[in-house]
C-alpha cells in the first residue's frame, strides 16, 4: 500500500536521526474521502442529480459546478455555509461578511480533478470547453447512481446533493468570490 511505503519512508527518516518512531497503524488509516470508489459514486450522483439536458439525449454540467457540488456532498456540514454564501451574493456588503470557510477551498480539491480525468479516460464524460458532457460510457454514471439508491449507500451525501438543487450557485461563487 502506498500509505505503508510512506510510513516506512518516514520511519527511515526519523531513525536516521535520534528519533525512535512508534507507529500506531490504527491512527494512520487514510480517510475514506480519498478512496476512488467513494469519489466516483459522489461524482456520478452529483452529475445525475444536477446535470442538464444537452444535444441529442446527452447531458452536461459545468466542470466547476460539479467540483463545488461534490465537495459539499462529501462535507455536509458545509451546506449552511454555502447557503449563506449564496444568499449574500446579491449584496456587496453581506458578501464580505458571509462565511469564508468554503471560498476557494474546493478549488484546491485535486483529487476531484484526478477522478474526473479518470472518468473522461473511461469514456463516462468528455470535456467541452468549461463543461463535462456525457460520453460513450455514460451509462456507468447512471449505474453507479442507481446502485447507490437501490442499496441506500451514502444517503447523507445524496440528500445534500438534493438540497443543493434549491441553492443558487453563481459564477462568482464558482470562481471563489
Amino acid at each position: 500500500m502506498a500509505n505503508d511505503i510512506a510510513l516506512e519512508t518516514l520511519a527511515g527518516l526519523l531513525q536516521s536521526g535520534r528519533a525512535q518512531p512508534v507507529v500506531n497503524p490504527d491512527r494512520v488509516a487514510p480517510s475514506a474521502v480519498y478512496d476512488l470508489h467513494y469519489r466516483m459514486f459522489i461524482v456520478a450522483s452529483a452529475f445525475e442529480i444536477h446535470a442538464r439536458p444537452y444535444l441529442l439525449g446527452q447531458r452536461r454540467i459545468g466542470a466547476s459546478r460539479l467540483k463545488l457540488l461534490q465537495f459539499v456532498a462529501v462535507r455536509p456540514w458545509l451546506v449552511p455555509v454555502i447557503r449563506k454564501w449564496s444568499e449574500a451574493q446579491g449584496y456587496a456588503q453581506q458578501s464580505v461578511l458571509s462565511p469564508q470557510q468554503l471560498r476557494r477551498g474546493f478549488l484546491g480539491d485535486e483529487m476531484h480533478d484526478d477522478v474526473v480525468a479518470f472518468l473522461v479516460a473511461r469514456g463516462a464524460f468528455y470535456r467541452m470547453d468549461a463543461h463535462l458532457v456525457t460520453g460513450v460510457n455514460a451509462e456507468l454514471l447512471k449505474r453507479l447512481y442507481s446502485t447507490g439508491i437501490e442499496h441506500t449507500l451514502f444517503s447523507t451525501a445524496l440528500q445534500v446533493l438534493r438540497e443543493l438543487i434549491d441553492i443558487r450557485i453563481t459564477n462568482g461563487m464558482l470562481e471563489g468570490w
Partner: protein
Amino acid sequence: MIQLTEIEVRGQSEAGPFAGILTLSSGLQVISARNAYGKSLAVTAVAWCLGIEAVLGNLDNDPSCFPEAAREELELSGRPSARVYFSECSIRLVDENRRHLQLTRAIKGDSTTVRVREWSDAGETRESKLSARRQTMQDEHGGLQHFLFDWLKWPRERVATFRGTPSEVYLENLAPAFYIDQNEGWTNVQALQITRYGQQEIAEISVEYLLGAIDALRARVARQEASQKAMALRETARELAERVTVAFLRRGWRVDWSGNGSISDIVTRWSSRTVREALKGDANIDLSVEEASLDARVERLRKALTSEPIDPSDASATPAASQRVINLKQRRHKLSEELHTLRTQRNLAAELVSNLEHRINAATDLLRLKTTGVGRLDHLECPTCHRDLDPATFALTAQSSESISTHIEALKRDRELINKNLYSIDANMEITSSTLVEIEDELRDAERALVNVTSAIGTVREQFAQIASDLNRAERGLERIREASREIDELQNAVSRWSNEVSAMSQLGVTTPDSNRRRSAFLDALRKYLIALGHSAIRPDNEASLDFDEQYVPSLNNRRLRSLGSASDKSRLVAAYSLALAAASQKIGGLHPGLVILDEPLQQNPDTQHRELFMAFLGQEFAQEAKFQTLIFTSLTQDEIDRLRKQGTNVLIPDGDHFLKSVPASPLPG
C-alpha cells in the same frame, strides 16, 4: 386423563334439520372416510367447543374456520343446496372418575357462549352457560377456560410476557401439543402455538406443564421475571444517578455518581460510599462541617448585632460593602465570559460529533461497498484502445476493506472522545450557570447592603447595617446548606431502597426443580415413537444421542432433528413428539389430558413410503396399547382398512356420503 366420547354437529337449514355424530371409544382409533366427507368439520368442532379457535388463527368467536356447509349453505344428499339457518356443535368428554361433560357452542348463532352440561354416572346433572372467549380465564363464574381448568384439576400458572404484564397458561397454549390440525399443525412441533399473546418461552412452558413439571415451569418464570426486574432496576439506577448528578451540578458541585454498567457493578460502586461521602471525596464539600461553620457565623453575627460593643472609630463598613459589590461584579463578568466560551465550545463539539457521524456513515457504506461488491467496478478499460485503465496513472488509489475498517474504528474512537468532551462541557455549563445564578443573587444582596450602609448616618449605624446584611446572608446560606442536606438524604434513601430491591431480587432464589425424571421419560418415549414411526435419522444404534435442548427441541448430536432426515420425516417428528408427550405424561402422572388428535397425517406426504411407514406404526402393539386416546382422522383404502383391522387396530368408518345428513325434525336441545 380424559376421553373424547362424542363429536356432534347439528342445525336447521332451508331443507330441514341436519346432524352428524361421531361416537368415539378409548385408546387408538382411526377414523377413516373419503376426502370431503367432513372429517375436518368434526376435528374443528373439538377446538371450537373448547374455545381455542385462536390456534387455528381465528379471531375470538369467529367461526370462519368451519367449512361453508356448517355456516352458510349445505348440500344434503340428493337435495339442492339449502341455506343454513342455525348450526351448533358439541363434544362429550368423560374423565377417569366417570364425570361427564358436554360442551355445546353455536356455529351460526350466538357463538360467544358455550353451554355446559355436567353429569356423573350417579345421575347428578348441572347446566351452565359460560363465556367462550371474553375473560375466559379471569372470570371465575362465567369463563369457560376457568371452568375447564377447574374441571380438569389443572393448576393455574402465571407466566411472564414481553410486555412486562403478567399472563398465564391458557388452554390454547397447551392444545398445540395434542391437537394437530391438518393445515398448519404438521409444519413443526407446536406449530399452532400462539405467539401474539407475548408470553415468554410459552412453547417450553407448555411442555413442562403437560409433563407436570410445575417446579421447572415456576423456576423458568422466576428467571424470566428476575431478568425483567433486572432491566427495570438498571433503568431506575440510571434515573437515580441522573438525579444525583443534576442535584449536585445545580449547586456547582461536580461528583462522579454513575449509574452505568451491570447491576452488580452499580451495587459495588454505590455501596462503597454514601452520597455524602462522594460529595466530600469528589467536590471536597462536607455538608455537616459547612453547616456547623455557617451556624457558628450566624451566632457570632447575631451576638455582634445584639450585645457586642461597636467601635465608633471604625469607618471600614462602607468601603467593605462597596468592595464586595465590585468583587461580585468582576466575578459575574468572568463567569459570563466562561459561559460564553463553553457555549461556543459546545456548539463546535456538537458540530464535530455530527461531522464524525457523517464520516462514519460514509465510511461504513464504503466498507459495505468494498465487502459486498455492490456497484464496484473492478475492471475499467479505455473505450478507445480497450486497455485496462490503471487508477494509479491518475494518482488515484482504491483503499482496502481493512484500511476502511481501521479508519471507521479510529473515527468511532474520536466520536467517543468528543462525546465525553461534550458531556464534560455540559457539566461545566451547568456548574457555571448555577454559580452565575448564585452570584447574581449575592450581588443583589450586596447592592442592597451597600445602599443601606451608605444611607446610614455615622460609623456605628453603618456597622450595624453591615452586620445585619452579613447576618441575613449567612442565614440564607445556612438555609441553602440545610436544604441541600435534606435533598441529599432523600437521594441517599432512594439509593438505599434501590440497593434493598437488588438484594431482595438476588434472594428470589431459583429453585432447583427435579424435572429431570419427567424430561427423561419424555425423551425415552420420543425415541421409541420416532423409531416406531420410522424417522429415517433415528435408529436403535444412535437413539441414545437424541436429546432436548433448553427449549425441548429434539436434537441429534447437537443438530436439530427437524433439519435431519428426509422431507417426510417432519410430519413423523410432529406425530412422535405429540404422542411421546402424552405417553410420558401418562407414565409419570403429568397433566396431559390424555387425548391426541392427528388430523390427516397421511396427506402431509403423499408418497407411498410415508403411507406404508404410518400403516406399519398403526399396526404395532406399541401404538395400539397406548393408555391415552389417540384419534387419527384420515382416508384409507379398503385394503388398508382390512389390514389394520386384521392387526387389531380399531378403525371407525362413519356411514353415509357426508358427515352432515338430513335428520327427522325434532326440537333442538338446549
